[in-house]
């Protein structure tokens, strides 16, 4: 049962081959069986079985939608009413959200089942899931490797078939990079497409939630529920949501693919480049046309991002002050002591580094040189994409420079870690949609293909990615010991 996709399971539920309660029980058992992967921070067994019971009733009443009764799990960055929402941090280890994020609310309304809350890098700051207060997650393909981050628990849970689909969030690659490392499909939608209400903020102009699934078809189903205007998010975009499943099989004849030459430089190992080239060759067999393009400013993405994201993070995380919720230190001497010690004890070292950099970049005398300059470079990068996407339909390239690296391999060197995001960050700066799909293996570890589209063209991206999954079986491979 656990090897089936959302689309397949929905049919089975409709045909009463099994109930949502059976399906949910089976997944809860798998979560226990594979607890060593450390995917989950909280398993909501009682709530999940109650939701499954309601879903079974909806199905027998003929009121089921495509996600009714499907067991999903959510990154612990999404607020869930009455359930611990830790954001991977000691700061929120005692926090039970008083309300649901819009994304959670939408899945509840669709009748989906929530199995629990997934492990992640602390406050989504990390590329390996090693900054989590709740310990690292293992890559299901190689237990000595990282699953990627920050949505590492999400990627691992889907790859290990512990949840049929999961939510993730992507600020600089946090959906696409772990999806690539764990051999699953991950979509970061256009900024503003999915509500950020109740999604704990890291860098507000970059954060975007999206689906992580085994197939593109499933990603379309999850996005259908997640996407749409929300008046409670001031950056939500009021634009109609198309039917994401409708055009999945559209022909790719005449599709114009742009390959930025900057993506294929010395940083990309040759085996990784080969995987991308093979995938592109598959597209030419499907009738696509390939052109080389140039994005001269893309090499400035990492510098611009590592000012903008920490600057926004230092402002966003000022709300964690030990006064209204979250961790408070013992016996504070005065108000400053309360702030300083509560924050000092509640945050881990990577979060602290980013708060410090952000505070510095925004401080008097440095603002113009760092923050303003980074915003100007953000414009240049965004303009590069605008130009290229006026010439081609989609841009393709690698997701990461290497396959999943080892646990502990980069955790001692923040800059090494930052450089692993070099192919994903520019998309967030521009606010574009992009996805990662499995496209091969290097050193027995999965490798992703990144496809970037124009604003609000998620349906086109899903179509392009789905057609590839009709021709290949990379997305159907399962890690050893998982079957």
């Amino acid at each position, binding site marked *: 049962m656990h090897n089936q996709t959302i689309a397949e399971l929905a049919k089975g539920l409709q045909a009463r081959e099994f109930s949502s309660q059976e399906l949910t029980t089976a997944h809860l058992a798998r979560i226990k069986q594979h607890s060593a992967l450390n995917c989950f921070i909280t398993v909501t067994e009682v709530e999940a079985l109650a939701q499954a019971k309601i879903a079974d009733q909806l199905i027998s009443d003929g009121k089921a939608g495509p996600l009714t009764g499907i067991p999903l799990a959510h990154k612990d960055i999404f607020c869930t009413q009455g359930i611990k929402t830790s954001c991977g941090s000691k700061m929120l280890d005692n926090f039970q959200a008083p309300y649901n994020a819009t994304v959670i609310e939408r899945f509840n309304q669709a009748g989906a089942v929530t199995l629990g809350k997934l492990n992640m890098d602390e406050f989504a700051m990390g590329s390996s899931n090693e900054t989590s207060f709740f310990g690292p997650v293992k890559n299901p393909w190689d237990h000595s490797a990282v699953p990627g981050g920050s949505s590492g628990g999400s990627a691992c849970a889907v790859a290990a078939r512990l949840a049929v689909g999961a939510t993730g969030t992507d600020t600089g690659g946090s959906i696409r990079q772990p999806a690539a490392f764990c051999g699953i499909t991950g979509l970061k939608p256009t900024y503003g497409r999915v509500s950020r209400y109740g999604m704990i903020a890291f860098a507000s102009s970059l954060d975007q939630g999206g689906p992580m699934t085994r197939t593109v078809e499933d990603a379309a189903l999850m996005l259908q529920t997640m996407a749409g205007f929300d008046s409670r998010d001031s950056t939500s975009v009021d634009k109609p949501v198309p039917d994401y499943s409708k055009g999945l099989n559209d022909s790719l004849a005449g599709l114009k693919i742009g390959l930025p030459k900057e993506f294929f430089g010395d940083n990309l190992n040759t085996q990784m480049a080969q995987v991308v080239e093979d995938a592109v060759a598959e597209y030419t067999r499907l009738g696509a046309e390939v052109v080389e393009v140039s994005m001269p400013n893309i090499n400035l993405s990492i510098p611009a991002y590592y000012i903008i994201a920490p600057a926004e993070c230092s402002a966003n995380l000022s709300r964690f002050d030990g006064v209204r919720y979250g961790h408070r230190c013992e016996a504070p001497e005065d108000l400053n002591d309360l702030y*300083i010690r509560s924050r*000092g004890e509640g945050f881990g070292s990577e979060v602290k580094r980013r708060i410090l950099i952000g505070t510095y970049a925004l401080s008097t005398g440095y603002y113009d040189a*760092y923050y303003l300059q*980074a*915003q100007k470079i*953000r414009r240049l990068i965004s303009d590069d994409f605008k130009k290229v996407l006026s010439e081609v339909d989609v841009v393709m390239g690698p997701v990461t420079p290497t396959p999943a690296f080892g646990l502990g391999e980069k955790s001692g060197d923040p800059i090494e870690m930052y450089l692993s995001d070099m192919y994903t960050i520019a998309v967030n700066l521009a606010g574009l949609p992009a996805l990662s799909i499995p496209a091969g293996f290097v050193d027995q570890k999965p490798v992703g293909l990144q496809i970037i589209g124009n604003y609000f063209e998620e349906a086109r991206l899903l179509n392009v990615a789905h057609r590839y999954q009709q021709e290949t079986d990379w997305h159907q491979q399962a890690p050893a010991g998982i079957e």
Partner: protein
Amino acid sequence: MALTTEEVNKIAYLARLGIDEQDVDSYAKELSGILNLVEQMSSVNTEQVTPMAHPMDQVQRLRVDEVTEGDQRALFQAQAPDVEAGLYLVPKVID
């Protein structure tokens, strides 16, 4: 660009962020490394470029000026470390 330990302590205070004394040196080193990484931005001529704060160039939406949120103080304060009579308690600010 290298940050001194004094600068690190000053930034940490501005952020009201406690860092262990024994970690200040390594923070100074790591933060200096990050500043070196971002240094390459300074060589780019951006005189004519409009800063981009946000991907969508949106304007703030306006809405009718009416109450849309009910009073949920008791619910929210149930999460608080210390409250009394509907107020959040902190150590004395003024002697």
